[in-house]
Every structure is written in structure tokens, then in C-alpha cells.
């Protein structure tokens, strides 16, 4: 065991799953020789050869459509989309085939595909490099969507995703790729899909977040430690299917609910969580379930980005408001 970054944890999961299972292949734009623009796949081509780890033309529909074909013909593809904002040209394949092939063929063709993609802002990048598009995947039946917030979870969740027989969109918050390290076991292990993680117990308000924003939420909670209420913090981890039970149980206890996400507000995951909280814990609520999120605007270029992406300050402000609401 050693301290590892999220990036290193992902690289390790890829490497170990390739070792374990010959049918795992890794590919994408610059994912082969160079090891990806973030170096997430570094060393894999050297180790597993050009047949199982390769560069592709710039063609997202082919990257994801070929994954459908590979999966039908016995492989377990782990394609990379260079940045989530460039998944759109391949979205057709995700929506009309990958998410539906198992259903369409009545179980004949499973789709054990894991699409990895860096996402989210906070790294002062160009346009289309900073979006949080999880809604576009979570709205599609047949897909799973996973977003890790720690190196430990990243390795375990990715391992589960690769071994899973359904297509998984695995979104990596690029600003936490190297932001911090954590003890991560050297051997392979799994963290189950579909299970949220209670990061911190509390009794007065439930806060749900995931990915990089989870760390902002933590900071926010820390900044409120002298306040008169305690916060239960849940890391959603799997965005689809949602672990409703864990959230509902928490809200039934706390009576207050806040979801914090980087994505735009309208139809962000927050809207779905609030609806579920309503459906299943309505009469336990002591304040309106609330979301703190990006605005309904295009992610601004770096000089204006801070107005859009929520930080611990905005989250703390909302936690306090909801927790003390009477």
C-alpha cells in the first residue's frame, strides 16, 4: 500500500484488469503511445502491446461504436473520450446502441463497456473542456454512470465498472487527478456500483455531492464546524442507478436536504434527487430540499469560470441557510 493520486489509482485499475482479463482493451485518441493527454493510460501500451492498447483517429462515433461491436464479439472495451465535452459526436452510439443493445437483443449481446472521460472545470481550460454532463448519461435507461471522488474509490469503482456487464460511463474529475494522494491498496479490489458512501455522519442536514465538488462540500462543512448543527455528507459515487435508499434513510433522520453539483441547475442530478426525496421522505422534511449548483449558462471561459462553478463558500452558505431554516 502506498499513497497514490486519483490518476495513478485509475492507471493501476486499468493495468490490473488488463492483466486479469485478456478481453479488456484500452484505446482512444492519444491513449496508446503517449498514454493519453493526462497520462492516465501511460505504460499500458508498453506492457500489453499495440493490439490491446491503441491510438485512434479523431472519431468519437467510431471509438464508441466500435466498442459496441467489440463487446458483441467478446471483448471488454475501455475506450477513453479525451474530454467529456467531446463525447457528443459519439453520443449517438451511446444512446441508440450501447444503452439499448442488451434490451434490443433480449440479452444476447451484453455491453461490458466502460467509457472513461475526464470532466469538469476548475483547471482554466478552453471551451468544451469544463462541462459536467452527467445528466445526459443518467437520463438514458440502460447506462450506468460513476463518478469517484477519491483515489481509493476510483480504483475500486473502475475495477467494478470494467467487470460489470452493463455499459458504464466513468467520469473523472480532472481537477482532482493529481490534487491529492490517498492510501490505495496495491492489489485489485472492488467498490460496488450503485452504493452511495456516507462520508461523515450527522443529524441535522443531509448533503449529497460527488467528484471534485465532494471536496468543496467537505471544506464547507469544516468551515461550519463551530455552528450549532451537524452535517451528514454523502458521496453519491454512482450517479445512475441512484442509491435512493441511502439518501432517503439519511433525510428521514435529518429532515433537511441539500445537493451540491457542478452541472447547470435545470435538470441537473439535483432535480432528480429532490424529486426522490419528495417521493419518499416528504413528511420528514423540515425545510425545502435545495440544490446549489452551476447556473443555467454556458460554462464561462477561465476568467469568468469562478462565477459559475460552486465552491466551498457557496456550499457553506446554503448548508447554513437550509440547516437553520425555520
Amino acid at each position: 500500500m502506498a499513497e497514490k493520486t486519483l490518476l495513478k489509482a485509475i492507471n493501476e485499475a486499468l493495468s490490473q484488469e488488463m492483466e486479469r482479463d485478456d478481453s479488456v482493451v484500452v484505446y482512444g485518441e492519444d491513449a496508446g503511445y503517449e498514454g493519453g493527454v493526462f497520462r492516465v493510460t501511460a505504460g499500458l501500451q508498453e506492457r500489453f502491446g499495440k493490439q490491446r492498447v491503441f491510438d485512434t483517429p479523431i472519431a468519437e462515433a467510431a471509438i464508441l461504436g466500435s466498442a459496441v461491436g467489440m463487446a458483441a464479439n467478446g471483448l471488454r472495451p475501455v475506450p477513453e473520450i479525451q474530454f467529456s465535452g467531446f463525447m457528443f459526436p459519439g453520443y449517438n452510439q451511446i444512446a441508440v446502441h450501447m444503452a439499448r443493445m442488451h434490451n434490443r437483443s433480449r440479452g444476447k449481446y451484453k455491453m461490458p463497456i466502460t467509457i472513461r472521460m475526464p470532466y469538469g472545470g476548475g483547471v482554466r481550460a478552453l471551451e468544451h473542456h469544463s462541462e459536467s454532463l452527467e445528466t445526459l448519461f443518467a437520463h438514458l435507461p440502460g447506462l450506468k454512470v460513476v463518478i469517484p471522488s477519491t483515489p481509493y474509490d476510483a480504483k475500486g469503482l473502475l475495477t467494478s465498472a470494467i467487470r460489470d456487464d452493463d455499459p458504464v460511463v466513468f467520469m473523472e474529475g480532472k481537477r482532482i487527478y493529481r490534487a491529492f494522494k490517498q492510501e490505495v491498496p496495491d492489489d485489485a479490489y472492488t467498490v460496488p456500483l450503485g452504493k452511495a458512501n456516507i462520508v461523515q455522519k450527522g443529524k441535522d442536514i443531509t448533503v449529497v455531492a460527488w467528484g471534485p465538488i465532494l471536496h468543496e462540500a467537505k471544506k464547507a462543512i469544516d468551515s461550519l464546524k463551530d455552528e450549532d448543527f451537524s452535517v451528514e455528507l454523502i458521496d453519491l459515487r454512482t450517479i445512475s442507478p441512484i442509491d435512493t435508499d441511502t439518501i432517503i434513510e439519511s433525510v428521514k433522520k435529518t429532515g433537511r436536504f441539500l445537493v451540491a453539483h457542478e452541472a447547470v441547475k435545470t435538470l441537473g442530478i439535483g432535480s432528480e434527487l429532490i424529486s426522490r426525496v419528495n417521493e419518499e421522505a416528504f413528511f420528514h422534511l423540515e425545510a425545502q430540499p435545495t440544490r446549489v449548483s452551476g447556473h443555467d449558462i454556458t460554462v464561462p471561459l477561465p476568467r469568468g469560470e469562478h462565477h459559475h462553478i460552486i465552491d466551498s463558500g457557496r456550499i457553506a452558505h446554503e448548508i447554513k441557510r437550509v440547516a437553520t431554516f425555520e
Partner: protein
Amino acid sequence: MILDSYDPLKQEMFNVIDDNGKVVNKDYEPDIDNETLINMYKTMQLARIADVKALQYQRQGRMLTFAPVKGQEGAQVGPMAAAEDDDWLVPSFREMAAMLYKGVPLKQLYLYWYGNEQGSKFEQNVMPVNVPIGSQINHAAGIAMASSIRGKNQVAISFIGDGGTSHGEFHEGMNFAGVYDAPMVTIIQNNQYAISTPRQMQSKSETLAQKAISYGIPGIQVDGNDPLAMYAATKEALNRARAGKGPTLIEAVTYRQGPHTTSDDPSIYRSEEEVKNWQKKDPISRFRKYISNKKLWNKEKDEALQDEYKDFVKETFKAVEKYPTPTVDEVFDYTYAEMPKTIKAQKEAYKAYLKEREGE
């Protein structure tokens, strides 16, 4: 080599027999055993009869929307006859004849067009009907790449329409497969129309075969109503693919004799004369003449076959009509390989509602 000898840029089109089934290109007449020839003919006939009947059923309100294959049987059966059992068929949505040749039971195909997902579960290396234009080419590329990676000897044979060649997915899939020398053969069925839109509205390129040049791979224009030419060209392409030389693009020049689908009225956009002219090149009658000339076939056999198939098709459709409609479980249970809790909960809630309603 056929692929080297016909240059699409010179508008050269490869054929073996003429409209009367006479061999006009002895050099390239494929050497096909008699059993296979008969099988090719029978499959085309079965497809034709099943097609005509399906249209009738649809007009009677018993069948749903359906995309007729009539006129394109040769462009489909030729290639499939050239393929090995283990090769993959990656269809678009108009490949009934190809699917039948691969061994997919007619009942499955009818069940699909009848509106039941059970009709898309095949035992063969055949992908389900693919509606979104162009997208199947990328599946074929992936299947072919997996064949290479896994050290198999399979080739992926995909079909696309003339309209489909305008799509970005076609381009990406062809180019992708080219880069990896993936064992893939793509057959464009240029049936002259994409719904109402004529071929020349799809692209300014003189032929569709020449699009192969964009991928650095061979492309050839073939008389798509000549099953022998389709067989021969595909065979060569399959050999190339198996030898690690990569994909080939074959433009089958053919004609959709029927409507686009049962919702379409072709009289809006084309003349009866045009249809009649193409009927003279009908692949089935041409092929019948060819095998008759070879003394493999005759009128009596043909009548017997037609009677047999008509009955078979009727029986098959009856069975499909009696097929149980999808249950609530079926509708929910295949969404994921393993059903998540939230969907299970939705299913139970819906079942409870149905029960309550029954009670009302």
C-alpha cells in the same frame, strides 16, 4: 483480381451474367458448388415470398411497419453465400434475404416486424436490425477488430444504403477499420433512393464505390442484381480481409422495387416506367435462368418450391400472430444485464397499479 480490374473512377461495373442469365464474363464466373447455388436461389425466393406476403399482411392491418427487400435479394444473398458460417452479418434494416441466408429463422424476422423484441435474438453471428443510419458500420469495424485482437478468422460483413454513405458514421467506421486493417467488407446497396431522395442528391461523387479511395482501400461497383458477381467480388474481399489486408467497399447497383417501408408511397417520387425497367433486371429471374441453363433447376421444381414456401410463410406468420405479447417482466427485465433496485421498484409499482386497475 476482380478488385484491381474494375476502376470506379472509370465508371466500370463488374458483372458476370446478363439480364437473361447468360454468362458474359466467363473469366470471373465464380466456381460455386451446386448445393450452394440452389441454396442461394431458394433463399432469394423465400425472401421474395416472405416479403410480398408481409406487405399483404401489413395492408390487412396484421403486420406493422416493415421495410421490403424486393429487388435486392441478389445483392444480399451473393455476399452471404461467399461468407463462412463464423463470419458476422451486420445488417442495416432491409437485409431479410441476407439474414435468412445466415440461418436466422423467418419466424424471428417476422416477429421483429410484428413489433416484438424477441424477434431480435439470434443464435447466429448476426446483429439485430439497425435503424439509425450508418451506425452499424462502426459496429462492424469493432466486430472485425475484435476478430483480429482475439486471433479469430471472422470477417464482419456490413450492409448500408446509398443514403447511408452520406452519414458521418459511415465515414468514421470505414476510416477506422482501414487504419487497423480490420477484416471487414462493407456492401453499399445502392437501390437508387433514400426514401424519396434520389441517389444523385446524396453525393456529387459519380459512384459510391469511389468513396473507398478516401480510406485507401479497394472499392468496386458491382451489378447488384447479379448474385454471381456479388458472390465473386465479395469472395475476393473476404480473402483480402482474412489475409490481413483490411476492408473493402462494394457498391451493389440495384433497385428497391417496392416502397421504402409500408408507410411510403413511391408513386410520389418515381415513375412506373422506371420500376418496370428495373424489373427486367430482377435478380431472381436472372439467377433462375442461370441455374436453369446449368440444368439445376426447372419449372416444376420452381412451382413446387413456391407452393412450399407460400405455405411455410403462412404458417410462420400464424405462429407469430399467436406469439405471446410481451409481459411486464419482459418489458423491464432486459434494460440492464442485472436489474437495479430502482427499476425493480418501478416494475413492482406498475404491477401493483395494474392489479388495482383490474380490481376496479
